[in-house]
């Protein structure tokens, strides 16, 4: 494209390109800022997309770029896949989608570094600082790539959501990490050694798999958020490789944002990041307390009619949704139930635990999809004092976030995690398929409390039955 420009323009083109990159950077920063508030979030996202568009267009004027066939083909293919996926994905599958997009982003950064390494022809020509950044870019990009695919598989259920571990795993992973860093150093010293290069690539891909496999399903929000941060850092490293400030800055912004979200998630679960990454928490046998087979425990089952009656005669009902609701795609039926109750003069609120769902804030998205008004949604801290004055709490597909073990049993893996104080309410009704433990893999004593009733079954079917019953009450 640069051939078409007059020589006088070509002479100053690099500066113009840099200035437009600076403009794109500003647009990104403003876009991210606007993403932080509900009123401006959509325009923020659109601004960020605009910034990206500006960056891409101006890059095409780069004098180094002289062939456009592959570029156009790549953009067409990528856009088609991305558009299809983005349009088709269910809101409940959002965490998987973000995970896999993330993986592609990280993979692209690793490929950019690889491409640069190959392009130079004789790697010995590369300065040592370039070799370091190429090595790091491949390392972080590859970990993000395979790690994200494992996270995707775990969320989809292709891979067991339980931690998959082997003895000495943490030690082995640490060894591999140190090993690759040493190899990056070696590559700098002896750039023409192809074996070292391939070892970095291979081990990094393996590391992505090995670091995510031992992480239990309950910790996936943290992992996705962390991988998101990695993909930003990988992009930043790719920026170091091709010496491009726009990449360095936007990558760093994303890296920092991802780390903050990771931190928020960890706090919501009262876990440290180290514990999430190396604790192999969650899954069916991670708990000291036995499974739900203890014979002295009984649960009280209830029926749709009964739930409808109890709710109708209540003054105040709080709904605590969890991932079970999402899996059953029951958010719309839930809204119907809530509407019916409101028509009957019952006060309805929703209590949202910060890690309800599979991703931070995921539940808010699902309820927004079902048109639940914002002013009925309450964060955990806001709603916890309310339970004392509540007649009925409907717990729909939520498990660990209402488990009193988090407060009472110091030995429990979720001990210390802030929970919804549903047990303060007069009555709780748990909607659940069975008595099986939730994602964290621990039994929930709430189920056996006298004030609790269980409504077994798929959340959608159960709620539909309740709408029927509500018509008749």
């Amino acid at each position, binding site marked *: 494209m640069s051939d078409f420009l007059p020589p006088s323009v070509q002479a100053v083109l690099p500066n113009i390109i840099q200035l437009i990159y600076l403009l794109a950077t500003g647009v990104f920063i403003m876009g991210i800022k606007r993403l932080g508030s509900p009123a401006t979030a959509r325009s923020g996202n659109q601004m960020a997309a605009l910034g990206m568009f500006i960056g891409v267009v101006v890059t095409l004027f780069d004098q180094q770029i002289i062939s456009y066939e592959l570029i156009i083909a790549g953009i067409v293919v990528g856009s088609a896949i991305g*558009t299809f996926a983005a349009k088709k994905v269910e809101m409940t599958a959002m965490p998987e989608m973000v995970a896999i*997009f993330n993986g592609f*982003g990280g993979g692209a950064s690793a490929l950019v570094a690889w491409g640069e390494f190959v392009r130079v022809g004789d790697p010995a020509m590369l300065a040592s600082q370039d070799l370091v950044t190429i090595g790091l870019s491949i390392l972080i990009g590859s970990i993000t790539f395979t790690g994200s695919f494992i996270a995707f598989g775990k969320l989809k259920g292709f891979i067991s959501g339980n931690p998959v571990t082997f003895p000495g795993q943490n030690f082995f992973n640490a060894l591999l990490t140190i090993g690759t860093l040493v190899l990056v150093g070696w590559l700098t010293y002896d750039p023409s050694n192809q074996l070292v290069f391939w070892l970095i690539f291979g081990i990094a891909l393996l590391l992505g798999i090995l670091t995510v496999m031992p992480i239990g399903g309950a910790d996936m929000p943290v992992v996705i958020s962390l991988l998101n941060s990695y993909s930003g850092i990988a992009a930043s490293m790719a920026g170091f490789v091709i010496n491009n400030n726009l990449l360095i800055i*936007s990558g760093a912004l*994303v890296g920092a944002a991802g780390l903050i979200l990771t931190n928020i998630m960890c706090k919501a679960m009262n876990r440290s990041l180290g514990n999430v990454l190396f604790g192999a928490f969650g899954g069916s046998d991670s708990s000291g307390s036995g499974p739900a087979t203890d014979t002295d425990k009984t649960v009280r089952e209830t029926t749709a009619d009964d739930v409808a009656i109890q709710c109708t005669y209540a003054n105040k009902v709080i709904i605590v949704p969890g991932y079970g609701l999402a899996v059953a795609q029951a958010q719309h039926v839930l809204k119907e139930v809530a509407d019916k109750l409101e028509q009957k003069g019952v006060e309805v609120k929703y209590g949202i635990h910060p890690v309800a769902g599979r991703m931070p804030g995921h539940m808010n998205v699902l309820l927004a999809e079902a048109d639940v008004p914002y002013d009925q949604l309450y964060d955990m801290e806001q709603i916890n004092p309310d339970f004392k004055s509540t007649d009925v709490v409907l717990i729909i597909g939520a498990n660990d976030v209402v488990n009193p073990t988090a407060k009472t049993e110091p030995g429990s893996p979720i001990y210390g995690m802030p929970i919804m104080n549903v047990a303060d309410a007069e009555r709780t009704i748990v909607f659940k398929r069975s008595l099986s433990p939730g994602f964290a893999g621990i039994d929930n004593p709430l189920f056996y409390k006298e004030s609790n009733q269980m409504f077994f079954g798929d959340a959608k079917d159960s709620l539909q039955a309740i709408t029927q019953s509500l018509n008749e009450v």
Partner: protein
Amino acid sequence: MSGLIFNLFIFVLASFVGFELISKVPPTLHTPLMSGANAISGITIIGALVIAGQVDHEFAQIIGFMAIVFATINVVGGFMVTDRMLEMFKKKDKNDE
């Protein structure tokens, strides 16, 4: 070495800006924020364009092509899906804050 040091300055300063920008986001927006940030990390597409657009090495071009495909999926898919999510929030923005 000055180039690397300069880039490091940029990196560290941008990280601080990132921390400042995101530190007080309400939980409602965590998912869209994450997916929006994710789309931005696809900025690596610019690197991919540079690699794929050069003809001096065919194999590098092919790697660049793959990088473009990957990054474009990330960018296009990421921004679109974020917009889809935020559109749902938009409908009720009278209740915002």
